[in-house]
């Protein structure tokens, strides 16, 4: 009973916060609600025995990405933002599409069947801690994607620099 209550709390808060994120007029508010949302999601991860993921959710998402968002939002013209309509004209259509998709997916979830479980049971993970278990897989089976991920990040850094840099005055 207690876990279900716990889940109920997180679920309601996450949904409400999501709605707030997409509906607030002021982007700063949206980002703030998002921050709160990320903490709740991290909590949900803990609930699912994923400590390491919960940690990087906080560190990377909340700590790095959202701050970046906040910087950019503050660079833009907020005053004008508050004066104009926040949705485009065809938003009811979009709502219909979203709700239909929602119904469709929920319907699909109903007749889902699970594959046989693997060998990382909760006990097994707890025996060697989640970080160690994850690291073992990551640095063996997924070493190559891991390296690629690092290259992607490197490119992202350089790319962001190049893009955001002010155009140099052309020689002429």
């Amino acid at each position, binding site marked *: 009973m207690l876990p279900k209550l716990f889940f109920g709390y997180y679920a309601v808060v996450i949904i409400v916060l999501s709605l707030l994120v997409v509906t607030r007029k002021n982007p700063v508010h949206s980002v703030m609600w998002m921050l709160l949302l990320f903490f709740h999601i991290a909590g949900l991860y803990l609930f699912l025995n994923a400590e390491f993921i919960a940690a990087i959710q906080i560190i990377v998402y909340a700590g790095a990405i959202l701050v970046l968002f906040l910087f950019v939002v503050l660079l833009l013209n907020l005053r004008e933002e508050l004066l104009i309509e926040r949705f485009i004209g*065809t938003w009811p259509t979009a709502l219909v599409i979203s709700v239909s998709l929602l119904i*469709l997916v929920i319907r699909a979830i109903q007749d889902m069947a699970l594959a046989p479980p693997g060998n990382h049971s909760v006990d097994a993970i707890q025996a060697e801690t989640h970080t160690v278990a994850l690291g073992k897989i990551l640095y063996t089976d997924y070493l190559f994607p891991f390296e690629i991920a690092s290259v992607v990040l490197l490119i992202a850094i350089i790319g962001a620099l190049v893009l955001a840099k002010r155009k140099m005055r052309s020689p002429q």
Partner: protein
Amino acid sequence: MNYYLLIPFLPLTAFLINILFGKKYVQERAHWVSILAVAGSWIVAVFTLLKVLKGETVNEDLYTWVLSGTFEVSVGFLIDQLTTVMLIVVTTCSTLIHIYSVGYMHGDKGYYRFFAYLSLFTFCMLMLVMANNFLQLYFGWEGVGLCSYFLIGYYFNKKSASDAGKKAFIVNRFGDFGFGLGIIVIFLTFGTIYYEPVFTQIGGVAAQTISFLGYEVNLATLIALLLFCGAIGKSAQMPLHVWLPDAMEGPTPVSALIHAATMVTAGVFLLARCSPIFSLSEPAMVVAALIGAITSIFAATIALVQNDIKRIIAYSTLSQLGYMFLACGVGAYTAGIFHLYTHAFFKALLFLCAGSVMHAMAGELDLQKMGGLKKYMPVTYATMFIASLSISGVPGLAGFFSKDEILWLAYAGPSPVGKFVWAIGTIVAFLTAFYSFRLIFLTFHGEFRGTQKQEHHLHESPKSMTVPLMLLTIGAVASGWVGIPNLLGEVIGIEHSNWFSGFMNPVLGHPEAHGTHAEEWMLMGISVLAGLGGIGLAAVFYLGRRSIPVLLAQKFGFIYRILWNKYYVDELYSHTIVRPTLWISQNILMGITDAKIIELIVNGVPRAIGGVSQHLRKVQTGLLQHYAAIMATGALIIGAWILLR
């Protein structure tokens, strides 16, 4: 290497030297190269004649020219009696005219070019007569046509000259169209296009018929008529005669060499060469005889009223060529070739004399502006007078013997139209004498009718021009003596006096003639009378009462206009062939088919696609979210289809 190869290839070498190095190095010395080469050819030709007289003929291949499947043809040489006669005619005339040109073309800007073309022409003509197969004949045939094109259009800055050259080439192409098909039919029939096997096998297939474009035609007739197409084009017979009068735009030596003595007689040569084919087809023979007869009288009547000195001679050439065709058409090939041979001398002489006159008159061609030139240029007068006597058939001169032989064989031969063409031939003899002497009298007698300045300029031509005239005069007088009719020969005490006929016998055979000696004397008398009558009438008209011709022209104005306008043949062609073709090209092909129909389809399909896309592009709002929404809808549809299936 065989000695006879020198005959064509010496002039070719001269051509190459002149055309490649003429402008920079040879320049004013160009005539030496050409004259030496042609004279060399002449010497070898005489040498060849001596060999052929001994009975040594040649039929050899040099190298394989085209080989494709069973089609095999070489560059090869056939030297027999017919070839030899042509070789002598061509090299002699060519040599003399080369020499004449030294004086005539002196100081011209394209001196080297002129001699290069003359040499090239000589080469092509020699290749033509020496060929041992039809394709090489065709090579020479087109080659001389090309040189004719170059030389007619020699003064290419003149529009009329370049027009005339082009016309000559294209009209000839019409003839060559038939000629080429003839060669193809020969190949498909015999599997070879060498003379020798074709002529030996033709007897076997002559009776066969062949389906040609849906018609059943006799094989020999078909081949003969197709080849005949080529002959009438080159020899300017009706209806393809229109180019020859215009060809007088070329320098006069060219008219003498190409359009009188040699090239235009190639048609007659072809008929004689293919006599084994023609002889097997009576329809083809009749066509040849009739075309020849009609052309001869047609041209002679036009010549009566013309005033351009060169054009009169050109029509005279047409008329004489008609004579030769007539001869071949009645089976008298030897007589045709004999006339070709004598005609070459006196007609070349006439042209060169006309050139000499033009030289003195600074290019003036109109008879009405001449007169009384006798005292200024005695040599030209004398030689031209003799040439005119010869063409008029005055006994003892070259023209008499050949013309007389043609008329006699037409009358007495087996041809169904013989009597008819004889009658026309006799009338033409009269007309020929008339217009020839009209020309003489208007040019050399009476008072000078040109301007003061022209009169001042009058002079006899230089030696390089008069010497060839005199040499040719010898030919115009004496060349006929190798073919004195046996009838006359008996009188003057020479047996087998028609030596020429005997010489040609191995190639051309002997024509049949059924007539008595009395008849032969009578015909000879009639033709002599016709000639003398023509001269007399001309004397009356143009030495005596100058008013008579003017009066006649007024009285018969209608006929005069028709003759003056050359029977409107040029206009007829212009309106029935040239203009409709151009009109179709401009208005139907360019205007409708290409521009409307094809382009409509070609441009219409993309335009239709473009039109549809004009509507479709409205879907592209450019708003990011619309695209995303469409994508989401797509996901929705695909998901729904998978789940709810």
